[in-house]
Structure formats: C-alpha cells, structure tokens
C-alpha cells in the first residue's frame, strides 16, 4: 500500500466542514423541544467549525422559526430554547439581527380602530379597490366608474401614510423582546414545561425522531454518531462559466438562454405567446388594464419607468434599464475576453455564496485558519472574482486547494498569482511543492530554482545561466548551500525535504523535515509530510508517531487518520488499522480509497462478518463494532 506522499497536506477530498450529523441532531432536538415543552440542555459540543455566516443563519432562522413551533409557549420559554441551542453550538446571541415580534402591536390596534372610526362614514374611501370590486360586478363594462374611483382614491390616501408613519414609530420603539431575560427564570420555566411532555399522548409525537433524540440527550447519551461532511456548494468543475455568467454578468447568460429558448420553441416562443394571448383575452377580460390606460398609464411597468424617471422612487438611474443593461453586458463580455486570453484554466465553483460579500478575503482567511478548506476556497474565489489582480487572493486560493488535495487547481491558482506578482516567494515555493506532488520534476525544479533566485538572501547563490537547463542535482546542491547559509530557515529545509522525496531519498528527506520541525514544531502539515515520508521508507512505527503529532495539532485532519490506518496495516496490526479507517470515514464517508483500505484490513483480520457492512457502507454498525 503506497502512502500518499503528503508533501502537501494531502487530504483525500473535501474533508473539512461542519460535521453535519451532529448539527442535524441538535437542530432536530431544538425543533422538537417545542412539542413536548422539554428544555433543551446546553450540551457542550465538539468544535463544529461553523463559519460566522453559518452561525448567523442558525441564530436568525432558529429565532424566527422558534416562534412558529412554540406558539403556545411563553416568550421566556422560546428565548431559553433559542439560547440553549445557540450556547450549545457556541454561538453568541448578543447580536440579534432579527428579534422576535411578540404578539401583535397592541398600540397598532388602537390606531387601526381609530382610523377605521374616522373613516367609517362614506364608502370606505381608502379601500377603493374593494369598493370597486363590488361595483365592478354590478356594472361590468362601465369603465368610467373605475376611473372615477381611482381618482377619488388617489385623493384620499392620507390616513394610509399616516398609519404607516405611526407604525414605523411604534416598531422602532418596540423593545426587541426578552434579550435580557434572567436565565434562572427561564430554567424554572422550562422545568415546569417539561411536565407537559407526559401529557402529550399522541403516539406519533412520542415516536418522533425529534423527541427520541431529546430524551436521549437529556439522559446524557449524546455522542457523535457519524460526522458527515457538509456537502459544500458543489465544487464540481465544468460549470463555472455558466454560473459565473449568471452571477456576475447575469444578463449575458440570460440573453443566450433567451435566444436559445426562442430557437428551441420556434419563433412563437412564450414571450410571443404571451403577447398574443393578451391580445386575445385582453379586451374581454382585462378591463382593468384598459381602464387604467385611460388614465394615460398603459401598464404598471411603464408607470414604474415613469416614476423612476421622475425620481419618485428615489432611484438615480433615470435612463431606461435596458440601455444601462446593454452597457453592463458589453463591459462584462469585454472583461471575459480579457480573462480568456490570459490563462483561463482555473475552474471556479458553480455556486458561491461568498460572491457579493463585502470582504471575502478576510472571511476566507478565517475559514482557512479554522481548516474549513472547501469553504475557504469559495471565499477566495469570490475574492479573486472581485479583485482579479490580487496576488495574495490567488495565492491563498492556491494554498487552500493544495491543502485540500487538489494540486491541479492549486497550480492554476498559483500561476495566476505568479502572473500578477512574478517574484512572490511564497507563490514560487508553493508552485514548486505542488508540481513535486504531481511528480512533474522539470516544472518543480524550475519554480524551486526561481524561488532561490528571487530570494533576497539566497539570490546570489543562483547563477542566471542555469535557468534554461535545470538538473536535479544542481538544484539540490544550491539548496544545500542555502541551508548551510542559514540553518535556521525552516522553508529551506522543507524544500530540501520535498526535493529528496522527488528523488526517493527518504532518509535525507526525513532528516530535512525533522530539522524543519525543530524550527516549526506546530506545523501540522509538516508532521504529515514527515509521517508520509517515514511510512514510504518503511518506518511505519515512527510514522504513527508523526501522524499523532499532526492529529494533536489538527484533530479533524482526516488524511492523517487514514494514514494512521495504513501505517498500522503495514505493521500487520489490522484490528487497529480498522479503527482508524472507520474514524476517518466517519468524518468523510466519501473517501473511496479509505473504504477500499478498510475492506482489505477487514479481510486480513478475518472479520468477514463485517465486510458486508463495509460494502453497504454502513458506518453505524462499523462504529459500534470498532470504537476508537
């Protein structure tokens, strides 16, 4: 069994993300707790790695939804449930983006009644169209009546705006409800409400998945079942162009689609159909429109345009939207052509929730720091879409891909970074490492040499005439020189380790990585590199130690879990290896290679009884049988 070299932190696929199953169960119990009136216990959870955006979603949506599930319960109960959920997920509840709206605005009722009282005499002038409804039925076909009504109504919308005004005042005065309720009171409240559970006799409610989970949780039996990985917003390659167009120059795609649509449905496409249909039916049925046109307003769309033109809606774009849109379209086409002529091999993800965020770079760095690589990739993509000339954005994007085991994309991103900033050392080093991973020796040597040449300290070592024809030995010698020049520079030792892996000189590679680790002991990817190199040089026992170090630093480092399994298997410790594979698979069930390794280990350990569970990918059984 060959260890993935792990020169990069090679993780098999998108292994980072909130473990969905745990989260799902928590949300489940939260949603359910309304029915039995069970208090939600703030059970501490493992770090789920939720992004700020995720937390905001959970906070806002659970607050709003709770008011629907818990309709019967008091505001205090609702708040305590929401707070329990949020605190168990380690989410601050201090920023209440969306507070509850407790009951009805009582004050509003008064205004409502008042306004009704004031307007009582007369045929409800403010409800013109309602009255019109009534009349319309009687005198079908008399357009003038409606027109008069319309005029009358326009004169009499005073109270409506007054009402609105008062309402907004009330809304702004209204305290956002119970943010500062006493926790003790809430606890007492929930304890009392817990009794109502016993009174709910409906067997269906008793059988609800929500409810069962809640009772399990209240007995302290909550545990991580199988951490599933959040299937992040589809990073399947291929569609980026389409999605890119939709998201960024929407009109282009729409225009294309529109043309296509017209073709595929013949000249009488649905737009025409629609127009024709209106002509047919318009005269008989849509008298409203006709009547309306007598007021010199043919259509509400036109009316809208007119209002915009007059600035009635406070918009600045007074021109027809279509003109502005054409300009926008041309601009987008031009910019797309620009990027096509440059190196367009980077494939953007299809759907990217980070597009349009104010500072995707910062969000990406935060996600990257937390190890949420797939999310970080999306954020960085959003950044480089926004600022295509940001070398740092491209570099971080490349880093995220490299850590996420996608060297092709990493190289593509790094090359864009290099285009923008040809002498960026970090970029050159990363390109060298990525190409080594892909076993592309000439390219790897080129970039590593380039790194050396542009380095302020080691630049003098490199002879310019060398850059045309690079030989492995020459480059290795130069780095050896560099390492002697400044033995305290971990980067040089890492490059050396990489170079020795390239030449399968594992002992030297191990020595280099160990030197680097002495300088950077907390670099988990470095520990993984060391482990993989040791494993490849048949020092599996040592490798396990290195992987353990990596895991101590980064517990959700799935590749290291799987690599541990490989190392145990290599030593004939199949039972042990199974536990590690199962653990890795629990964190990422999509790791196909790990399933294969697991099957082999099960066979070697004569655990044929479990092979079936493996083939059906039944993690529940496997985890029960092989706890770690």
């Amino acid at each position, binding site marked *: 069994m060959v260890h993935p070299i792990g020169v990069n932190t090679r993780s098999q696929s998108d292994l980072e993300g909130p473990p969905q199953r745990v989260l799902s169960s928590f*949300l489940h119990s939260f949603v359910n707790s309304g029915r039995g009136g069970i208090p939600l216990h703030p059970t501490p959870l493992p770090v789920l790695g*939720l992004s700020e955006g995720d937390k905001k979603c959970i906070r806002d949506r659970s607050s709003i939804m709770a008011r629907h599930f818990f309709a019967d319960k008091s505001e205090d109960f609702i708040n305590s449930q929401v707070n329990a959920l949020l605190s168990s997920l380690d989410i601050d509840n201090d920023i209440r983006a*969306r507070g509850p709206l407790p009951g009805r605005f009582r004050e509003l009722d008064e205004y409502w009644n008042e306004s009704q009282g004031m307007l009582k005499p007369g045929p409800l002038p403010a*409800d*013109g169209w309602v009255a019109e409804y009534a009349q319309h039925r009687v005198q079908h076909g008399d357009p003038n009546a409606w027109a008069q009504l319309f005029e009358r109504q326009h004169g009499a919308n005073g109270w409506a705006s007054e009402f609105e005004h008062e309402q907004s005042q009330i809304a702004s005065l209204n305290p956002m409800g119970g943010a500062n309720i006493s926790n003790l009171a809430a606890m007492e409240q929930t304890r009392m409400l817990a009794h109502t559970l016993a009174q709910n006799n409906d067997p269906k409610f008793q059988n609800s998945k929500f409810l069962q989970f809640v009772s399990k949780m209240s007995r302290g039996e909550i545990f991580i079942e199988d951490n599933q990985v959040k299937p992040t917003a589809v990073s399947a390659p291929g569609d980026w162009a389409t999605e890119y167009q939709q998201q960024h120059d929407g009109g282009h795609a729409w225009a294309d689609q529109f043309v296509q649509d017209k073709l595929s*449905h013949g000249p009488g496409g649905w*737009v025409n159909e629609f127009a024709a249909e209106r002509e047919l039916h318009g005269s008989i049925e849509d008298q409203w429109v006709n009547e309306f046109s007598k007021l010199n307003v043919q259509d509400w769309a036109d009316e809208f345009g007119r209002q915009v033109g007059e600035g009635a809606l406070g918009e600045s774009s007074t021109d027809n*939207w279509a003109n502005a849109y054409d300009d926008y379209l041309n601009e987008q086409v031009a910019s797309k052509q620009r990027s096509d002529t440059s190196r367009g091999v980077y494939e953007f993800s299809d759907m990217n*929730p980070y597009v349009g965020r104010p500072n995707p770079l910062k969000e990406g760095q935060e996600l990257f720091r937390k190890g949420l690589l797939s999310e970080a990739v999306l954020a960085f993509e959003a950044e480089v879409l926004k600022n295509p000339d940001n070398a740092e954005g491209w570099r971080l994007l490349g880093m995220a891909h490299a850590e996420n085991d996608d060297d092709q994309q990493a190289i593509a991103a790094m090359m864009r970074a290099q285009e923008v900033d040809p002498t960026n050392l970090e970029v050159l080093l990363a390109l060298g490492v990525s190409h080594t991973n892909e076993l592309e020796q000439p390219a790897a040597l080129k970039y590593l040499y380039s790194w050396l040449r542009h380095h302020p300290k080691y630049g003098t070592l490199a002879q310019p005439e060398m850059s045309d024809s690079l030989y492995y030995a020459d480059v290795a010698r130069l780095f050896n020189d560099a390492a002697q020049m400044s033995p305290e520079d971990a980067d040089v030792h890492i490059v050396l380790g990489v170079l020795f892996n390239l030449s399968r000189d594992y002992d030297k590679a191990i020595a280099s990585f160990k030197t680097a680790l002495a300088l950077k002991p907390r670099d988990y990817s470095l520990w993984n590199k060391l482990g993989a190199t040791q494993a490849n040089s048949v020092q599996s026992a040592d490798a396990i130690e290195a992987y353990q170090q990596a895991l101590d630093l980064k517990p959700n480092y799935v590749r290291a879990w799987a690599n541990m399994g490989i190392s145990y298997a290599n030593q004939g410790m199949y039972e042990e290896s199974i536990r590690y594979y199962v653990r890795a698979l629990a964190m990422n069930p999509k790791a196909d290679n790990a399933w294969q390794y697991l099957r082999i280990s099960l066979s070697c350990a004569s655990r044929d009884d479990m092979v079936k569970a493996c083939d059906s990918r039944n993690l529940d059984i496997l985890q029960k049988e092989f706890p770690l």
Partner: protein
Amino acid sequence: MPVFKAPFNGYAVKFSPFFEQRLAVATSQNFGILGNGRLHVLDLSPAGPISEFAAFDTADGVYDLAWSESHDSLLVAAVADGSVKLYDLSLPPTANPVRSLHEHTRETHSVDYNPVRRDSFITSSWDDTIKLWTIDRPTSVRTFKEHAYCVYSSAWNPRHADVFASASGDCTVRVWDVREPGSTMILPAHEFEILSCDWNKYDDCVIATASVDKTIKVWDVRSFRVPVAVLNGHSYAVRKVKFSPHRGSLITSCSYDMTVCLWDYMVEDALIGRYDHHTEFAVGVDMSVLVEGLLASTGWDELVYVWQHGTDPRAP
C-alpha cells in the same frame, strides 16, 4: 399512492399546471436552518413509483417554488440566501439556473406566479418586503415595503392581474394593487403571526389566512370587519393554506401538528378530511389543477406523498 423520499427536509410541493403527472418539490437541509437545498422535479407514472425528472442543487435551502404559468418548463425557486432562481427544464443542467436574482436581503420565503399577467411573479421575504418581477428583466420591477416583520407568503388574485395579498409576521394581511403606491387594504387578521394566505379561485373577494394561532380564517374583502369563517382543528401553527382549483368552498391546509386537512368553509362541520401520514411537521401541500381531487404534500420527514382525496396517502 406513490411516495418519494428526498435527501433533505421538504419545504414546498407544487403540481405543474401543464402536465398532470409532474410536480416539483423544494427541500432544505437541517430544516432550513443551515445547509444546502435541492429542487426536485418529479414524474408520477401510472401504478409505478415516482421518478425524478430533474434535480437542482442550491447553496442554501429552497423554501418555496412556483411553476411558470406561461411556459411548461420554467420554474422559480425561493432560496434561503435571499436569491430567486429560475430554472428551465428544457435546458441541460449545466445551463441552470438560467437566472439568479439577488435583491432580497434576507431569506426569500415564498414565490407566486401571476396567473393572469403571465410574465410576472412576486416573491416575499424575511426582509419584510415583497418584490415584483417580470421574467425579462434582470431587476425587480417594484418593491413593496410596508410590513413591519417577515413576509411569509404572498398570493396573486386569480382574476385581477394587478392585485395580490401578503401575509406577515406583523399579524396583518395586506392587499395590494401594483398600480398603487401603497397597500390598498390592511387586514389585522390574527392575533399571532400569519404564515400563509390564498385567494378563492371562484370568488375574487374571498381570502383565507393561516396563522400561528392554529386557525384558518376566511375573509371577504368587501366586508372584512369579521371573518366569514374560522376553521379550528389544527393543534399547532398552520403553515400553509390553499383554495381548491375545482370547488369554491374547498380549502386544504398543512400544519406543524403534522397533519394535512381539508375544509369546506361553507358548511357547519367544516373539517371534512384529515390526513396524518407525515411523521414530522407538514409544511407543503398542493392540489392538482389538472386532476380533480389529487393532493400532494411534503414535510420535514423528507417524504413527498401524492394521493387522491379520500384514499390513504400511505396505501401501497
């Protein structure tokens, strides 16, 4: 009758107005609180299982959908990230969504296609607004901002191209005429949040509202001081209400009490049918326009049921 199991929690189900065997389902991961979404297009086969005709993934939950009234392959999805996405089934998956309209600043919670002026639709959102769109424009035509809290649903009047109603957490239903600058009517219909509203298809002055207060109320907008009927029977918040396309007095509803109910608001014992086939919250229900009596529902148990009124949805 057939059942379809979705990977995520069901949020809405709608029959195609063009093909009697086709329906679409909006789903969201983790009850729509966090995660991805998926829009399924399903085909019923006579005596066979439900087959999936197409599916589209979204980066956030899909809360609602509407079929186009003008074009049989066009769908509009209301997505929790605030976007509104258009899908064309006649195009390959790579070309979809054909349009992604991002103007709502909070979750888009509902979408309704105009049945009269069939190039337009409205969306309502937790950003307290309703937006009017036409399919040929990249931006909304108008934004209606009067509600003081989330707008959970909005529905076009079946006869008047310019009139629609909106239901909000501010405990009011508002009736709007898009040619008017503001709402033309404010109906303080319930004491609690109002989650859904729909117009009677046979009487364009009658509207039904569904609330967290567990009731459905039926109103006549010409005399709206008191409701025409109050329908009691659900034991938790009523999530959706919908008038029958075939009988003027027939209403269907679904609720957090996990049931789907049928009502005749004209008769004394209004509750004429109750289905408790879902095992978690029932949040989506629809009645087929093309096949009288055919019902579909979905819920947070991730199941989609299609059945004929009077039969057991769970019968094999």
